[in-house]
């Protein structure tokens, strides 16, 4: 089955081409069908490949399609790598992707046919790029996918590009990603320069021979790429703004898949990171700091999508913490569960926004429980999952990361639990404010409240089941022996690494204690937030410290002051002084010089015979001088 792997990205590509080329002619229903069906086909194929990869005696295979770059000794094939890690991502991308396509067919129904087809065309292109990213067997193919998803992210954030704010959000996302991509690109060049190849296998094989300094540099540069794509400090500010895009896009790209590309990339390069402890520490601390910072900001946000966006940034921080402490399985596990519950949250939020007629401010919602029963139940389950309440999926994955963090440094654990408590708090603040209490919108809005149609509720239900049950793929060792199915599945990739499946170094009683502490604290925060916000939602403007949080620690303003403004001033300087005086001066000066010179030389062509004779004599003199004196 693996040899048909090329079909997996090919289907969305075909969908992209059809929707893109014929978007003006095909009707809405057909473009939605094409968009969804191609992804479904990829999903089915991925499932088949998954069952093959699952077998005990499976060995990772590289499917080489054609030579992509061949220059001198360097050869970069266009090849796909089939191993448990890539197949797991395939399933997440195509599975969640398919559900979101189905959801979109209903959610985007108000667009006209051409825009509707354009939307599916972008979405298919995104799925294609993302599949390329996870399937590539070398850094160059990975980079193609990496750039492709960045492009699609830009296109989809700016989908309603007529709105100035939205298109600048798209630009912001693109520029921030470019900064990260720059680091990534340098790292890839450095690797090619050092090892003469970009293939994962060969690089990892030769990596131990390279100096630690080189590996540290490369891994840090790769991490710069990851901070851009996966929205970590300091490049995270684009993700909340990326909520300008349609909600399904936020669910697919900015929650479930694209932003986890950085995690995938680092998990894929784990051999390099294991060789560079400094980089691991940097990754862990950055992840932790991002988790805490974003969680604190989320507490005071009032836009339903902004809360979820900061929550995403925060959860991504946890994943990086997991990567930094070496819990690669845990990080990938969290990617998976996060894809389920965060996609669910976004889709639920989309359903709410849909019902509220575009309203996104949770202060104007409330009591939606009555009107949107399915959305309400699924949203609640997702909140429980993200908060980490046992036995929902988030509990298992987060606990695995936190346990590994404790093993590395108990301080990581303490801060991590604090972040988890904040997560529980802001999620249930969001939940309670949105679904409980009384309705605070206009009467008109209340009149229109209705449960969303089946294409919207179907993905919600499927994702809710996954969000609830997904955690049982990774049951810790202390509950049952060899029950960590995911760890077992991924073991060939992270071979030789500690993971949930292999023996846990933290002893059993400590782990029980850790688990109990985090679960207990989280449940307390859930109940506290529920009680507090269901009765008396926070409606006023925040004051004091809350204002700092509501304004996102003024990070955007800080960036504005220390980077954007000087840059603008510099650009202004270049524009007004350098461009106008020097560049234009040179260009216009050349023209003026020619004009002036021509005007002067024109007098030579006076028609005056005397002048001609004079010039002739001078010419003769010059010729004589040259001939008789200079030419020796």
């Amino acid at each position, binding site marked *: 089955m693996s040899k048909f792997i090329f079909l997996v990205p090919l289907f969305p590509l075909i969908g992209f081409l059809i929707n893109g080329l014929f978007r003006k002619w095909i009707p809405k229903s057909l473009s939605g069908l094409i968009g969804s069906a191609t992804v479904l086909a990829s999903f089915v194929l991925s499932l088949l490949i998954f069952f093959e990869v699952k077998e005990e005696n499976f060995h990772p295979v590289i499917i080489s399609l054609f030579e992509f770059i061949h220059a001198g000794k360097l050869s970069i094939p266009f090849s796909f790598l089939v191993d448990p890690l890539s197949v797991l991502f395939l399933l997440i991308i195509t599975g969640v992707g398919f559900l979101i396509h189905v959801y979109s067919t209903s959610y985007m129904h108000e667009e006209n046919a051409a825009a509707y087809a354009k939307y599916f065309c972008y979405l298919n292109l995104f799925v294609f790029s993302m599949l390329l990213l996870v399937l590539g067997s070398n850094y160059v193919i990975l980079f193609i996918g990496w750039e492709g998803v960045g492009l699609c992210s830009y296109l989809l954030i700016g989908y309603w590009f007529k709105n100035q704010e939205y298109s600048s959000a798209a630009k912001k996302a693109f520029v921030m990603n470019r900064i990260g991509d720059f680091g990534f690109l340098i790292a890839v060049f450095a690797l090619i320069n050092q090892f003469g190849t970009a293939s994962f296998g060969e690089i990892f094989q030769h990596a131990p021979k390279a100096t630690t300094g080189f590996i540290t540099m490369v891994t840090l540069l790769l991490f710069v790429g990851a901070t851009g794509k996966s929205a970590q400090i300091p490049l995270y500010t684009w993700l909340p703004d990326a909520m300008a895009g349609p909600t399904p896009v936020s669910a697919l790209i900015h929650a479930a898949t694209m932003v986890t590309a950085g995690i995938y990339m680092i998990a894929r390069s784990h051999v390099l990171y294991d060789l560079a402890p400094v980089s691991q520490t940097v990754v862990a601390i950055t992840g932790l700091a991002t988790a805490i910072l974003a969680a604190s900001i989320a507490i005071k946000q009032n836009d339903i999508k902004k809360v979820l966006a900061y929550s995403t940034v925060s959860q991504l921080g946890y994943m990086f913490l997991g990567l930094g402490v070496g819990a690669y399985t845990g990080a990938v596990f969290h990617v998976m569960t996060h894809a389920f519950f965060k996609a669910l949250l976004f889709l639920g939020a989309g359903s709410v926004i849909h019902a509220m007629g575009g309203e996104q401010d949770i202060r104007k919602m409330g009591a939606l429980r009555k009107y949107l029963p399915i959305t309400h139940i699924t949203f609640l389950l997702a909140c429980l999952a993200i908060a980490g309440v046992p036995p929902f999926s988030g509990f298992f994955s987060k606990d695995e990361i936190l346990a590994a963090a404790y093993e590395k440094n108990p301080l990581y654990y303490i801060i991590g639990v604090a972040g988890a408590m904040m997560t529980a708090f802001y999620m249930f603040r969001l939940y309670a404010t949105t679904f409980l209490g009384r309705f605070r919108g206009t009467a008109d809005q209340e009149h229109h409240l209705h449960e969303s149609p089946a294409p919207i509720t179907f993905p919600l239900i499927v994702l809710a089941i996954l969000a609830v049950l997904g955690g049982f793929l990774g049951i810790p060792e202390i509950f049952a022996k060899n029950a960590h199915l995911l760890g077992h599945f991924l073991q060939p990739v992270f071979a030789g690494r500690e993971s949930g499946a292999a023996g846990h170094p933290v002893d059993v009683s400590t782990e029980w204690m850790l688990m109990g502490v985090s679960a207990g604290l989280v449940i307390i925060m859930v109940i506290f937030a529920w009680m507090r916000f269901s009765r008396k939602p926070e409606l006023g403007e925040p004051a004091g410290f809350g204002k700092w949080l509501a304004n996102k620690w003024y990070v955007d303003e800080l960036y504005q002051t220390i980077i954007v403004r000087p840059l603008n001033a510099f650009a202004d300087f270049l524009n007004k002084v350098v461009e106008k005086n020097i560049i234009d001066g040179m260009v216009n000066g050349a023209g003026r010089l020619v004009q002036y010179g021509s005007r002067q030389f024109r007098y030579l062509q006076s028609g005056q015979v*005397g*002048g001609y004779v*004079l010039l002739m*004599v001078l010419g*003769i*003199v010059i010729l004589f001088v040259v001939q*008789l*004196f200079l030419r020796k």
Partner: protein
Amino acid sequence: MNLTQILFWFLSALALFSAIMVVISKNPVHSVLWLIVVFFTISGHYILLNAQFLAIVNLIVYAGAIMVLFLFVIMLMNLNAETEPQKNKWLKMAGVIGGGALLLVLVAALKDADTRNQIAQTGVGDIGLIHNLGLVLFKEYVIPFEISSVLFLSAMVGAVVIGKKE
């Protein structure tokens, strides 16, 4: 300082002076007359160099025929000092400087030429006699001579065509 040398210096000085007068005279008629003086001095040089035939031809053709033609044209046009057009000062300066520069360059170039010990024989030799010249002219140079007659014919036709009224 024998007679030849005295004559040489006298004729040279007179030639240069007359030539300058040709250029600076306001009245065109005076210019013509000074030019005739120049031709006479040059004929004198020819005689010193024993080129008697050329000396006579120079006087007949140049001083006689051509300069009379000039005078005739000038008088036909009634040119005199008053009608003489003047160039502006700077152009005159440029002209003098141009000529001077040419002189300077040529004189400077001659310093390197291998002519210091060469002498032009004066008062000897009979190659300037019409007999010898005629023999060579009609033996070796007969074709150029005949062609020059055609040239004259065409010049005459040309002058008539140009000078004729429409």
